[in-house]
């Protein structure tokens, strides 16, 4: 009688993509309230990492630490490190504007500027000093093509971005984020306000974009996390209502054989 192990769960450190973002012992405070506690997380390059967990567990807060978006909220401070390509983005002297160029973001609700489609896309590049019309035209076409929106809007680039459908607006916001050539794209529930078809388009887009970009997505939709991501990070709050990293692994493991009972309970709908 012999029992032979047929599967061998690939270990995270073996044969994986290089590290893009390395979060080390990160805590984040709103005033005295500790919203995140000692988070350790490794985001791999040109992979999709999903952050899941119950409402209020700090998923979006964590996502916003990756491009220092939390700095915009008064009375916040962070401890620990978020290293982007090895450099701590919270180190003194870091150019926050440059961090946000390299780490773009798409929000839950599409938020195009009340400007034309063209002006929405070139907003970032103009801010960074691109003035040449043909350069800007090229950026607009490339970005809209990458966001799979070009064919639908190429004849009406002067029209208001707000005149587009919800799904199109979200893709416009994605094009706007891509226009400044980021390395990392943060997505905070990018499809939660969209219908199923528009949701699938965004998911397909993520699949295409991950060839060139590192994507981190916060989602409440378990199936979406399971469908689109390579890695999944599970968060929860502790007794102090502070967000913690519970488990992090390849997505296939998180959804078929998680190690932590709380992850199991969450992904099977026992709480959350």
């Amino acid at each position, binding site marked *: *009688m012999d*029992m*032979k*192990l*047929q599967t061998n769960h690939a270990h995270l450190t073996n044969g994986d993509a290089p590290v893009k973002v390395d979060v080390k012992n990160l805590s984040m405070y709103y005033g005295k309230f500790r919203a995140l506690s000692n988070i350790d997380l490794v985001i791999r390059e040109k992979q999709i990492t999903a952050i899941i967990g119950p409402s209020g567990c700090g998923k979006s807060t964590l996502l916003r630490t990756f491009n220092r978006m939390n700095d915009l909220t008064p009375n916040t401070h962070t401890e620990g490190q978020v290293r982007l390509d090895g450099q701590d983005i919270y180190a003194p002297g870091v150019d926050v504007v440059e961090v946000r160029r390299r780490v773009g973001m798409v929000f839950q609700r599409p938020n195009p500027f009340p400007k034309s489609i063209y002006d929405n896309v070139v907003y970032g590049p103009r801010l960074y000093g691109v003035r040449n019309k043909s350069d800007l035209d090229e950026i607009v076409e490339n970005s809209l093509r990458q966001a799979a929106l070009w064919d639908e809007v190429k004849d009406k680039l002067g029209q208001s971005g707000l005149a587009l459908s919800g799904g199109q607006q979200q893709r416009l916001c994605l094009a706007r984020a891509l226009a400044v050539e980021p390395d990392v794209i943060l997505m905070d529930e990018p499809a939660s306000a969209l219908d199923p078809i528009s949701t699938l388009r965004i998911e397909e887009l993520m699949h295409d974009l991950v060839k060139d970009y590192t994507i981190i997505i916060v989602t409440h939709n378990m199936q979406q996390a399971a469908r689109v991501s390579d890695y999944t990070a599970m968060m929860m709050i502790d007794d102090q209502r502070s967000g913690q990293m519970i488990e992090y692994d390849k997505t296939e493991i998180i*959804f*078929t054989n998680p190690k932590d009972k709380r992850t199991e309970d969450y992904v*099977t709908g026992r709480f959350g």
Partner: protein
Amino acid sequence: MLRKNFDNEIQQVKDSVLLLGSMVEQAILGSVETLKKRDIAGARRILEEDQDINRKRFEIENQVMILIATQQPMAHDLRLLASIMEIISELERMGDYAKGIANINIRMGDQPLLKPLIDVPRMAQKDVDMLHRSLTAFINEDLEAAKTIPMEDDEVDALYNQIYRELMTFIIADPKVIERANWLLWVAHNLERVADRVTNICERTIFIATGELVEIDNSDDEFWKQK
């Protein structure tokens, strides 16, 4: 709460698996009992009841498909439902082995058994005992039982080898009995395969409990190794 409904539905599916298992147990014991008595009408009943087994298997498969489609199971739920698909298929095939024995009984017509059946009913009894406990282990996710039950397959293999050797002596003594000996050999072969499929059920229980897909080598080719 939604989860409660889902749990209830999973429980119903598990109950159905137990019911299917019990139908298969009856079929195995019934096929050997009717063979022992050369009860052709009884053998025909086994064939009809095999249709019920097939229907029950499809019914459970459908239940599981609906749960997968509507509940999008994850983690343990996913392993459980995927494994149930495998287990009901194993059970259905065990039913086919019983049907095969009933068919042999019918094809034997009015020819008497080559010898009184002694080890064949023992094999059937052992199969059913192992099957019953393997399904209990599945329901309780009893890892220990799931690992040890397959070891008992050696007993079934030993009975098979014994029957084989005995039938060979009959054939050597009188080659005219080859066909009747062959029928019994097929009966024993079917019963030997039942125990192998019990092992497959135990492998699924291990998967449900641990997430590890293991192949238990229960030496079902021991017979061939001896040759």
